[in-house]
């Protein structure tokens, strides 16, 4: 019930195309859904995040779509660029207050390659 399932494992997109990565979860207590971007030789960095009170969040070319009833969320990268080539991780957590930080449960990652 703690798992976050991410697909596809790898993705090849032409420059200018749309990249779509999907994640599904089971634990309905999750209330925070971030996406992390990791370039080779670097640690992951927060890209964009959403809470379940909204169905979509957009930041520049990156959009999270959230479907609470289906327990799914996805990352859309519009006008994909070679510089977007990286590994993307979805994650989920439950926010606790006054105690320990809610732990992030990560998906297994998607390696995105954007071809010029």
């Amino acid at each position, binding site marked *: 019930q703690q798992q976050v399932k991410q697909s596809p494992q790898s993705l090849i997109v032409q420059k200018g195309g749309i990249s779509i990565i999907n994640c599904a979860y089971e634990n309905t207590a999750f209330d925070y859904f971030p996406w992390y971007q990791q370039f080779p030789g670097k640690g*992951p960095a927060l890209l964009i*995040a959403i809470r379940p009170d909204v169905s979509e969040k957009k930041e520049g070319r990156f959009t999270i779509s959230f479907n609470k009833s289906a327990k799914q969320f996805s990352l859309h990268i519009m006008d994909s660029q070679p510089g977007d080539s990286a590994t993307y991780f979805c994650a989920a957590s439950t926010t606790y207050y006054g105690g*320990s*930080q809610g732990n992030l449960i990560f998906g*297994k990652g998607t390696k995105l390659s954007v071809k010029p």
Partner: protein
Amino acid sequence: DVKVTQSSRYLVKRTGEKVFLECVQDMDHENMFWYRQDPGLGLRLIYFSYDVKMKEKGDIPEGYSVSREKKERFSLILESASTNQTSMYLCATAVTGRTEAFFGQGTRLTVV
């Protein structure tokens, strides 16, 4: 900017050695985490700490221990390194009440 510094980028150790991985943060975050990253398995939580001298097991604590004597420093200890502990190790920090985690650059550990 938050800075999370891991003491080594690459490390090669022999089977049976005691290994220390160090992580230091400069932003006074209460929470610190150690993850292990393996191809096809994503990031798996080993241990985390929400305060000095406090620690909790994550999903894969076997074979590891941790130490947090000061707020800014969180150490991961492999008591007796084994070849199946060859991996990328990532340290992260976060502020209580906010769920964004800030990661270090990772330590690639090879146990031979």
